[in-house]
């Protein structure tokens, strides 16, 4: 399972970076979304994927022994997903406004702020 997830994460990072380097601002949004999903999945996988072992201490024991599904990374991802949702919603609106104002979706035409007038 970890191996499969590792490949999925790598694929997501590669696809995200590829999309970020395209010239269209719509692909920019997709790239950013893919990157943040890749990071979320990475955090999830690093919490060690365990099946059917909830982090509950049995009645006859004092501490947890053996592998268990760590809830902390999942809580982290939940937070990160919520933050990512807000940020991406903002980015989509920003990109739409930029498209309406500048009149192009090509990042190469948005260099005015980088040039010396």
């Amino acid at each position: 399972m970890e191996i499969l997830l590792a490949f999925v994460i790598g694929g997501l990072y590669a696809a995200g970076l590829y999309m970020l380097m395209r010239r269209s601002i719509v692909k920019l949004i997709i790239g950013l979304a893919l990157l943040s999903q890749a990071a979320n999945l990475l955090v999830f996988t690093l919490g060690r994927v365990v099946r059917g072992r909830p982090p509950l201490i049995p009645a006859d024991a004092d501490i947890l022994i053996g592998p268990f599904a760590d809830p902390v990374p999942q809580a982290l991802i939940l937070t990160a997903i919520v933050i990512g949702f807000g940020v991406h919603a903002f980015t989509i609106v920003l990109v739409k406004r930029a498209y309406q104002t500048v009149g192009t979706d090509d990042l190469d035409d948005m260099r005015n702020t980088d040039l010396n007038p």
Partner: protein
Amino acid sequence: MTWTICGTRTSIRSAAAMGLWLILPILIPFLSAVATLLAWGQRPFQRAMGVLGTVGLLGAGVMLLDSVWRDGIQTLQVGNWPAPFGITLYADLFSAAMVILAGLIGLAVAVYSLGSMDADRERFGYYAIFHILLMGVCGAFLTGDIFNLYVWFEVMLIASFVLMVLGGERAQLEGGIKYVTLNLMASALFLAAVGILYGVTGTLNMADLAHRLGRMSAPGLTTALALMFLVAFGIKAAVFPLFFWLPASYHTPPVAVSALFSGLLTKVGVYALIRVFTRLFVQDVGYTHTLILVIAGLTMITGVLGAVAQTEVRRILSFHIISQIGYMVMGLGMLTPLALGGAIFYIIHHIIVKTNLFLISGMVLHLRGTHQLKNLGGLYRAYPGVSFLFLIPALSLAGLPPLSGFFAKLALVRAGLETGQFAIVAVALGVSLLTLFSMMKIWNEAFWKPSGEDDPPPTRSVPTALWLPTAGLALLTILVGLAAGPLLVFSMRAAEQLLGM
């Protein structure tokens, strides 16, 4: 809410009071933002709240520093969950000083906004977002939990995104896209690094992390993690070669917003770098901190050379932020108490001076309606007061004695000589000469040279709301220069606390 204080043996009442000082710098901006949002459409109230909230933040910062100075490091376990399981708020001298600076810059910019922000931006929630930005900044300064740091970074970022593009001018949107994209990439990298860190150590509490990373026997993995954090925070701090979002965007929003960003945002990145590379990643100093030192030198040089090539006041100042970040990172790279103390002193000096320079550039914009050097001129003849006001932070930035920048650079250069890092010392001194050159370029072009037009533009008066914060910050620059001795002692103590001495 309940809270406990660890490590202090004082009565419950004063313990509660100390926890209060730790939470107030986050709570005051939050409540101010809520009050401002509730009073949607009531501009006079929102404007008053902008000033009141930042005065409150400044006061809370001073009280926090006072209690840290007297009783040592303060911690607060949020929700009474014991460390390392819950979220810890943590304040040492460095973070308390940063909170004060956030309050100070917040106050200066809030007063300045009263006289310079247009009605439309104010109507669409400028002051609410402004408070939320301050909340994010103070939260990042006060957290003792690495994932919580990520959350505060995001709070700060989303507020800064809105401030950056509020108003929706073409340049703002173009600059905003670059700013948003590169900062979101940094956040994704930061999140991944936190995830890996938790995966290998099993904790998120910074004190606990320092302890566990110190005992880890996988040097390759720790170094890789350290470099991930270096890149993630490096983008936010705008170090070489990760700074490109800064000069593309900082000159586009209104001057008050630029000034707020220039004073606080990149410094939060530097703060995070200093936190992480003094407490967590000090296993392979020979590799990581040498790399930081090299980056520092390149950051200084590229920043100042970029500034020399610019002809617009705010773009020159933006490139100088980058070059100055190099000095702060240089102190971190040497990792001795004197070097770190110098870096902390430099941050204090830089935040005050840089914000002031941006605010004064706004005065120039108010008087002449342009930031282009070729269209400016004759300001000294028409407005000698504004001109002298510009000279104080400009000369301080270049490091002329007896202003604050001189002592900040002196401490760093001495630390460099003591540790035998002569190359970086040479770079620092050369860059400060180029800084002087480029400040003199603004002085010559905007203030000294005769006005280009045959009949000079009509004289306008500068509103008090623009005079007050700029004159106040200039006075503070002089005071920092005059009180350099005690402040350096303070910075050294803060540095020793950071290094755990």
